[in-house]
């Protein structure tokens, strides 16, 4: 099993996540797609770690997981806050911050 297979799979998963962000409008699904992209990055990191026989990539992957957990916590907090204020949960309508 060549490691390039893993990298191509990682690219495919990343492209799927990007497509989801472009396609869907619910902020929760967009957060899920961000998870997809972060995990694709993790897969590439681990594939490169295996390719080099080096464990530094594992530490990077764990740090990425920490960052993803933080992003989820803050993102879900924002969604719950928006829901409580009865704002529309639709990224096309939540655009007051757009420049």
């Amino acid at each position: 099993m060549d490691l390039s297979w893993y990298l191509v799979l990682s690219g495919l998963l990343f492209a799927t996540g990007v497509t989801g962000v472009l396609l869907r409008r619910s902020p929760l699904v967009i957060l899920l797609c961000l998870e997809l992209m972060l995990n694709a990055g993790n897969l590439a990191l681990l594939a490169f770690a295996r390719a080099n026989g080096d464990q530094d990539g594992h530490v990077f992957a764990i740090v990425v997981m920490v960052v993803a957990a933080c992003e989820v916590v803050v993102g879900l907090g924002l969604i719950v806050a928006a829901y409580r204020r009865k704002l529309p949960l639709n990224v096309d309508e939540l655009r007051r911050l757009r420049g």
Partner: protein
Amino acid sequence: MKEVAFFAGAIGALGGAIAVIGLRNLFYSVLALIVHLVSLAGLFLVLQAEFVAAAQVVVYAGAVMVLYVFVAAYVGGVDEPLWEPIPAQRFVAPLLGIALFTEIGIAVVGSGLESIESEGPTVELGFGSPAEIGRLLLERFLIAFEAASLLLLVAAVGAVVLAARKRDAGAGGGEASPGGAR
């Protein structure tokens, strides 16, 4: 054997990812992401990243996904409107995704790295084990480790502030909240 494990994991991960963006029901999307994450943990095991695979299952498929399920149940279904603010977004977005994948594929295949054309070097026993990762985290990557814990603390405090703002905004009244119904 490795091929079977790779393709099983790849099919699970890719199917889960496509189901996340394809399913209309929010709850099903979250469940599809769990399938995706568990399949990815299997792929991590094939790559001999045992600790990361375990962390993936425990942290992601366990804790983070429980949070998602909770919020999905709290918020409920989000009805996406049928009108499209950007014309033909439904067709252009997959095309852009395919274009991005082509670009990444060309970059990977054309990179000419020798190590990715092989299965990687033979590694000694204990590669990717908790002991090795722990030693790296506490010696070489200590600053990153501390920064990550600080980031987690900030995120936890931020989440509490975001979620609890309503009550003291109503009590103090200093901040105008648009939907102050409760």
